[in-house]
């Protein structure tokens, strides 16, 4: 197990592995998003309370899940980087942050576009919305801190600590709808015993959510490979790949 971990941590091996799996992931991702969109926009029935406006769920909920998922990836990588000084973990955290911020922005703005027709307001300072906004500020703070310090290593370390401290916000976002009396509706999917959403509406949501996850994964792998290339530009393996014209 440790040996496998160690080998993956080698930038060269990671580069090769990512190179092999990325095309497959890209194809699966495109397929999931295409089928998810079709089933979500065309096949899924109209909601009896919200009419067609509920279809915003198919971009809103996957975005919101991604905003928290990517934050957890960053926090996990930050812990590994702080404990074992693993460079790869730091690179993954670094390239993930802007995407996490982008999905948080999407969760907030599509939520706003859903809230206007359903609640009659674009924004409300309720617990779910406010904690999600704090998540956006955490991402922005993380990215700013990385670039604020003089040495990149010091910036990476400071940002990693910020990411770990900010983890407390994740359960707050998740449970905000239970702990506080909020405008936002409670979770409809994660209570698996009795999901309060019909199966024909649930399937496209799960397809979209998985598609979003793969979308992040594909972009994260490619961006990580780019950073690896830049950092390892003078090493022999990058040179020989360049000569073989196989970057």
């Amino acid at each position, binding site marked *: 197990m440790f040996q496998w971990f160690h080998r993956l941590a080698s930038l060269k091996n990671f580069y090769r592995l990512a190179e092999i799996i990325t095309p497959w992931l890209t194809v699966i991702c495109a397929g999931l998003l295409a089928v998810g969109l079709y089933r979500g926009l065309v096949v899924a029935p109209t909601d009896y309370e919200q009419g067609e*406006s509920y279809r915003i769920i198919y971009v809103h909920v996957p975005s919101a899940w991604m905003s928290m998922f990517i934050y957890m990836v960053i926090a996990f990588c930050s812990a590994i980087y702080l404990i074992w000084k693993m460079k790869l973990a730091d690179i993954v955290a670094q390239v993930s942050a802007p995407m996490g911020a982008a999905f948080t922005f*999407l969760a907030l703005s599509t939520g706003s*576009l859903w809230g206007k*027709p359903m609640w009659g307001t674009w924004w409300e300072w309720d617990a779910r919305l406010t904690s999600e906004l704090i998540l956006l500020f955490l991402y922005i703070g993380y990215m700013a801190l990385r670039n604020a310090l003089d040495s990149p290593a010091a910036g990476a370390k400071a940002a990693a600590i910020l990411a770990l401290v900010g983890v407390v916000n994740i359960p707050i976002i998740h449970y905000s709808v239970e702990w506080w009396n909020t405008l936002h509706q409670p979770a409809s999917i994660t209570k698996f015993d009795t999901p309060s959403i019909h199966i024909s509406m649930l399937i496209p949501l799960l397809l979209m959510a998985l598609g979003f996850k793969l979308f992040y994964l594909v972009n994260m792998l490619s961006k990580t490979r780019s950073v690896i290339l*830049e950092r390892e530009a003078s090493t022999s393996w990058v040179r020989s790949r360049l000569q073989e014209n196989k970057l």
Partner: protein
Amino acid sequence: MGAKPVAGEQTVKEFFAMGGYAFYVWMSFGLTFVVMAAITLSTVLQRKQAIRLVKRKAQINSNSDSVSGQ
């Protein structure tokens, strides 16, 4: 023009009308599309930039090698 809309045409119109919520639904999907397209574009550009950097460094190295070889 002036012709009666065929059944298919009507369905397409209804689809885009989204039961009166067209603005909110299409803005949400459009915004999501734009952001995801921007992420994809940045990934592609980042890769091109990295490859350019590797090539430039190799160039510099081979130049300095030939200089030191003289």
